[in-house]
């Protein structure tokens, strides 16, 4: 994984030059999706600081979570964009190896999310809208991260963003890696760059669990429908921002300009809405995401699985559940994968 993160992967076809020469999508859908994943992960893509340098007239970065430390994988601060003051929060990978290591490959620890929360709350109090830039392989999965409550930090940041009383525009600019992305990606409007991806688990992780080999990552990427266009169709993303031909990394200024136009347009629209309506609409936006139906209440038939235990149970008088109310289901299946993942 580190090899991929610092860009030493020997995979052919993913170098800048190749991509610049070959912007057309491959005909095979799996290959096409995989090419997008590579584009989304391209080390030369503009990150939060690069974008701000091109978009913002003023930027003052704020540091520290006021609990434990300052996480270089998340950037937060106050900015002025097109004469509008905003709070900006975004992940930050490094383009060069040293910087990438210093930024922990853009994978935040809990203190990164806690810094984000602190600065977003400041934005709320000051009445400043919030803009987030999302590009992260996932939250840092190490022991220190768990010790300091990475799950709690993500959960709390999501919770905060659902109720912040100020407009939030979020832009998925690269890798939207699971909970580590979502923690700063809850918004009134969710935009995505054309070659950004967004998924519940990395395609490698998904393939490892469901296909039992990471080599099937491209198949998993296709199955998860993780491209920006797919996410638009699912309603997870509200608008796709086109990238320069060849990808965002080929032209930072053009990418930044398009992002700026889209963000400013949405901020202007959101700012006109009364805050209580805004919060309620945000709640509704996420409340509606999901796919289910309601069937009649007939219980699903539990197939008989005759066995010695069942016969013994019948002999001893009734099922475990009926007899003492604490039994597990006696015919539980054992062949499902645990579905454990780093969401």
């Amino acid at each position, binding site marked *: 994984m*580190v090899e991929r993160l610092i860009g030493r992967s020997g995979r052919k076809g993913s170098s800048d030059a190749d991509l610049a020469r070959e912007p057309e999508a491959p005909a095979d859908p799996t290959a096409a999706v995989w090419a997008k994943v590579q584009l989304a992960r391209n080390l030369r893509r503009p990150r939060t600081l690069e974008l701000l340098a091109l978009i913002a007239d003023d930027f003052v970065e704020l540091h520290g979570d006021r609990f434990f430390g300052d996480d270089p994988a998340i950037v937060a601060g106050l900015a002025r964009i097109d004469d509008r003051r905003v709070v900006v929060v975004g992940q930050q990978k490094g383009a060069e190896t040293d910087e990438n290591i210093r930024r922990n490959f853009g994978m935040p620890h809990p203190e990164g999310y806690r810094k984000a929360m602190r600065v977003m709350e400041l934005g709320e109090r000051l009445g400043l809208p919030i803009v987030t830039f999302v590009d992260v392989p996932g939250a840092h999965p*190490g*022991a*220190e991260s*768990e*010790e300091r409550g*990475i799950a*709690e930090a*993500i*959960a709390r940041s*999501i*919770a905060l963003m*659902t109720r912040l009383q100020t407009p939030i525009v979020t832009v998925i600019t690269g890798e939207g890696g699971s*909970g580590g992305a979502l923690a700063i990606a809850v918004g009134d409007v969710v935009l995505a760059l054309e070659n950004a991806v967004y*998924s519940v688990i*990395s395609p490698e*992780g*998904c393939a*490892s*669990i469901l296909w*039992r080999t990471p080599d099937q990552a491209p198949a998993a990427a296709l199955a*998860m429908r*993780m491209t920006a266009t797919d*996410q638009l169709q*699912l*309603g997870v993303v509200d608008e796709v921002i086109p990238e320069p031909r060849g990808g965002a990394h080929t032209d930072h200024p053009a990418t930044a300009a398009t992002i700026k136009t889209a963000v400013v347009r949405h901020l202007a629209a959101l700012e006109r809405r009364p805050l*209580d309506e805004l919060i*309620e609409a945000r*709640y509704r936006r996420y*409340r509606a*995401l*999901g*796919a*289910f*139906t*309601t*069937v009649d209440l007939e*219980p699903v038939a*539990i197939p008989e699985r005759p066995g010695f*235990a*069942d016969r013994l*149970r019948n002999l*001893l008088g009734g099922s*475990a*559940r009926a007899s003492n*109310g*604490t*039994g*597990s*289901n006696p015919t*539980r299946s*054992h062949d*499902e*994968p*645990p*579905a*454990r*993942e*780093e*969401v």
Partner: protein
Amino acid sequence: MPIKLPSFRQRRDAYPPDLWTQCPSCQEMLFNKQLEKVLRVCSNCGHHFRLSAPARLNLLLDPDSFEECDAGLQSLDPLGFVDLKAYPDRVSAAQATTGLRDAAVWGFGSIGGRQVAMCVMDFSFMGGSMGSVVGEKVARSAEAALARRIPLVIVSASGGARMQEGTLSLMQLVKTVAATERLRLAGVPLISVMSDPTTGGVFASFAALGDVNLAEPNALIGFAGARVSAGTIQGELPEGFQRSEFLFNHGFVDRIVHRSNLRDELVKLVALLAPVQLPAPSSDNGNIPAFRPLSFLSALAERVIPESDEAVRG
């Protein structure tokens, strides 16, 4: 990023499947019938085996007090997801073997005579994974608790988000937490009970955010899979990593409660946490409205109950 299939426990297939169960912790052979009688806790070492959703409800609620809601909610297949198996086939298989429609059950009941909303998860249904149905049930249980101003108890048992529904599963983190956050701001308590396992997106949403977080002993509770944590990024893992006691020591679990005490603790907690009405603001200070999130959010509560049982986008 080579994630291998993690095994929470030694595979059950290795144990005599019918009459006896070997305790994975102390290797003692336990007579199944007896194990059920002692709440599926190893009588030798205290190891807590997993409980099904119905067993959990029976354990915690007052007898015959449970009234299930939304029993008919069932997954769709929004992505047309096929890996080695098609997603609908996995769901059908899980339904057939568990008798459940999905990995969570919710409804109203009482604990020590006090009404609560309760949502329990079942690991045996696709690893307790949270897709749209589980997310919807958690959100509805929170909205119902808010509307009635009664405590919400959620018992988690889940490997995380359900990959087969893609980012729609990820969005359930927002959906559930948005609802429990309203509950929190309205002064209605959420008691989160974490059983083995409570990991991934379930831990990283409502399960971590209880006003009181209880955990059964030695439950696996964590964000990243153990292989990921121990793999390319980190070396050795600390002793007891991602177990209840680890979480307690690091400040994320209020109390570790043996299953035999769990109901009694809940009786006490529900009584101590029950929402009360705050005194009304002094009416002669009309120009100084009290800082009262309660009224704002309680007023919203009337409007957050979904109008339709079906909510499919895309």
